[in-house]
């Protein structure tokens, strides 16, 4: 347990100090951390799923609080919670099936048969109900007394059976943990391979002699373009440099190294060039529940220009970027202001950046946001996001417990 706590603290620190860059790295590390939390978590005799969920929730809340802007952390925590519930559900269903089976046939295991009278009709009904319903807070709450009731009834069954039952339970708990960890591994695998999965579809969207515009740098975009290039498509790419971080320079360098015709432009030339562009392909920071996109700064401008010239605006996003939250004032609340030194030399303007005694505020403010919010209305002509079909399941409390995502970006 202490070593997990150390891991968590370490990761929290990294998140707080913004040491981890990019949603992909963050989400992968979050998933790995949660995996170790799960594997280290001692599972109690009963209600294993509840214990795991509690543990993951406790860690997840800390992680989300450490960097509320990095929505991928929350997404991954939710996904892991979802996985636990799913696995629990499927185990229960399997057990139920086993029960039904044993009820019919008599040549079952002795222990199983001994258990039979213990399980009352109410328990079976509750289990059936919980299998029929998707897991939500309500069903979980309803589950609680049931699972509490099971040991109660079983304890009344007698000591001899208790021993064998505990062995069965522990094997089931190990099975649950094992399954959950397996599923989390799959999730990690998904996250690490999301670029390839997205890139696979490149040829379907990029044709010969196309002119593509992108802004800043995104690994997904790079892979996407290179995948199309590898399929012998020849097209040219305009890269807006993405001031003040100038990651567009990096992207341009990578693209040139891979033999793509690349033209580097300033961000201000986006509007001038967009009329000759066939498609805008950009990466995103997060995709919100309303379809809006939190994207690197500058993309709102690009999206507006693309809309003006009816150029498809395509956002590439891995599944870990899909966030079930609805944005409220995202430009301010889901944004981060970076250091002014990226824009101005401190030495150059040091006299005006100070707080003044007279007015209480400095004469000069420097604004350097990290993200832009692209409202869904600007994404109407986006082919990839349109295929993105998200189904959210909400319970009465409005807490979103499950994400069912079917989209072509990944999964």
């Amino acid at each position: 347990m202490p070593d997990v706590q150390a891991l968590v603290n370490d990761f929290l620190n990294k998140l707080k100090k913004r040491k981890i860059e990019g949603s992909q790295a963050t989400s992968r590390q979050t998933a790995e951390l949660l995996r170790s939390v799960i594997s280290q978590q001692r599972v109690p005799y009963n209600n294993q799923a509840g214990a795991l969920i509690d543990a993951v929730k406790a860690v997840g809340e800390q992680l989300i609080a450490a960097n509320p802007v990095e929505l991928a952390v929350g997404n991954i925590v939710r996904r892991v919670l979802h996985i636990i519930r799913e696995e629990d559900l499927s185990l229960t269903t399997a057990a139920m099936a086993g029960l039904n089976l044993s009820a019919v046939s008599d040549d079952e295991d002795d222990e199983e048969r001994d258990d039979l009278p213990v399980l009352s009709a109410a328990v079976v009904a509750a289990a059936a109900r919980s299998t029929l319903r998707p897991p939500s807070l309500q069903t979980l709450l309803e589950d609680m007394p049931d699972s509490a009731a099971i040991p109660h009834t079983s304890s009344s069954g007698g000591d001899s059976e208790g021993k064998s039952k505990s062995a069965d339970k522990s094997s089931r708990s190990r099975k649950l943990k094992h399954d959950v960890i397996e599923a989390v591994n799959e999730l990690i695998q998904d996250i690490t391979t999301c670029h390839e999965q997205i890139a696979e579809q490149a040829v379907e969207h990029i044709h010969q002699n196309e002119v593509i515009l992108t802004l800043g740098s995104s690994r997904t975009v790079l892979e996407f373009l290179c995948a199309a290039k590898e399929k012998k498509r020849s097209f040219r790419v305009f890269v807006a440099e993405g001031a003040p971080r100038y990651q567009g320079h990096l992207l341009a360098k990578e693209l040139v190294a891979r033999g793509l015709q690349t033209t580097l432009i300033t961000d201000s030339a986006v509007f001038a060039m967009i009329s000759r562009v066939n498609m805008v392909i950009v990466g995103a920071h997060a995709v919100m529940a309303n379809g809006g996109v939190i994207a690197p700064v500058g993309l709102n401008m690009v999206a507006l220009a693309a809309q003006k010239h009816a150029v498809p605006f395509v956002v590439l996003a891995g599944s870990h970027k899909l966030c079930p939250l609805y944005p409220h004032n995202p430009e301010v609340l889901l944004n981060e202001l970076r250091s002014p030194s990226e824009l101005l030399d401190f030495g150059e303007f040091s006299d005006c950046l100070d707080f003044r005694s007279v007015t209480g505020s400095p004469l000069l403010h420097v604004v350097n946001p990290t993200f832009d919010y692209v409202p869904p209305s600007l994404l109407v002509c986006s082919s990839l996001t349109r295929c993105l079909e998200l189904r959210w399941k909400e319970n009465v409390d409005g807490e979103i417990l499950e994400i069912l995502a079917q989209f072509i970006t990944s999964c």
Partner: protein
Amino acid sequence: MIPPPRHASAPLSPLRRDTVPVGSYNASDFMPATSPTAATSSSDDVAWVGRGGRAGAASSSFPGGGFDMPAASSVPASGLTTVSVVNLPPGLSEKAGVAAELQNDRTTHSKPLKEKTTKAERRALQEAQRAAKAAAKAEGGKAPPASSGAVSSANAKSAKAAKPSSQKNDNVTVAASEKKGSDRPPEKDRKKDVPQPRMQYDDKSRVEKAKKRAVVKQTEARNRVELFRHLPQYEHGTQLPDLESKFFQLDPMHPAVYKVGLQYLSGDLCGGNARCIAMLLAFQEVIKDYSTPPEKTLVRDLTAKIGSYVSFLIECRPLSISMGNAIRFLKNRIAKLPLTFSESEAKATLHSDIDRFINEKIILADKVIVKHAVTKIRDGDVLLTYGSSSAVEMILLHAHELGKQFRVVVVDSRPKLEGKLLLRRLVGKGISCTYTHMNAVSYIMHEVTRVFLGASSVLSNGTVYSRVGTACVAMVAHAFHVPVLVCCEAYKFHERVQLDSICSNELGDPDAISKVGGRGEINFLDGCANSENLQLLNLIYDATPSDYVSMIITDYGMGKQGSIADKYEYIMYGKLYKIQEEGSGADIKAELLISFGGLLMSLKGNPDYIAEFQLDQKYFLCMRKLV
């Protein structure tokens, strides 16, 4: 007051204002009344200007709407002599001191109107204008001859407010009003005024020809962007030392011109106004030192000489549109010199002409722009500006001097980062500023109340041709419903039409793109600048579509949307509900009854004048005190 000359711009104007004599209504009767349908207070310019107020939208949707263009009404020429400075349509009753102007609601009527101007009608119009000009000339003759041209031209312009779609004739106007005494330029001259199509640099044979004549030997840049083959792009800085060394041995070139050319080349001199003034001053020097060679006439030889200097300057850096206009002005002045003038007289005239151009068209114009624009700044405003425009800077400083409380957002963009210099100057004056870069413009736009932009030129379709990035800022402002005010001196207007930023543009030094100044850690592209696949594109200008611009502020007033509202004290909106006729035979009178939300107006007049009026049309009634 000298009535402005009517010039040929009118027939081209799609804006047609139909006017009727205001007959029998009593102005004082309905002046104090407020009509519920009338636009609210016209001082609230935002309603008119930025957010596209209902009434404002109707007037603004005229192509270049809202300018008091001399109306192309087919009234008898005699009516033209009563034209006042504000160019009110003739035949209006001015007794009450209220000018009532009725405007056909364009939504119902503008199209058929446009079609109606047949060739014959246009000719009639031209005749009428010629007659008017003759009248104007007769009156203008009374004024001192030296100043009459200037004054009347100023009058003419202030009356007609710079209007994009009238620009086709702007230079003609200049010519027409300046030469004053003579007739309209004959067709041949007019043809000359239409500029040659620009040099297309993908046309190999022409480029070769041009190269032979060139003084500046430029090396073509590597890795050109395919889309921009038609624009010149040369290696930067290679020819500068070479040219500098040639400074003292260059025969055909005047040193003053040479110096200006080098300054253009090195980028020491930038900004439309600064470049234009420098060029004109250099030409002033040229003219001062000029002596007509034997067996040549001053007019021809000087024009040729100026032409060769201009092509040298183009080699250094492509001309801005403002410079093109200034050159055209100068050539025009040279061509129009009376043959009777001696050389010294001619030189003195040209010298003073250039002085006057600089003073009137640039320096005074800026002052007038500042005066107009300051009225648009209110306490608590957050003004956004992009890059560094001299006009906008003057406006901000002046507003600050007036004690207005406002904040400025300076948006900047690579590679020039001119905004930093502006920021330094504004902060030095104690104006509270926010500095940000291009990409964050949609973040900062939430708090902005007005956007002030400079322009390199305003084209005749209303497109604003300006520093690259202006279009982005205007677009984002438009999306956030923030009014965009473009400040542009009228001499920068041009009759060209441009639909995108690619057909005509200027390419800057590509290396400026790959090198991020002041940020040593960003040198990602150091190694691969020579790669075949990498092109660096440094555009200088872009074209802002007119729908993003709420208002153009020029030295002739504030143009485009809302300008009608700005010029009147009271505007009403109503509907024509009845047309009836009285009398018979020769003195038949038609009566129009228009309801302005319960306030009724009756107009009586000659049925011929009101033939355009139809039942159920909507009308604006604009009122203003004349004296």
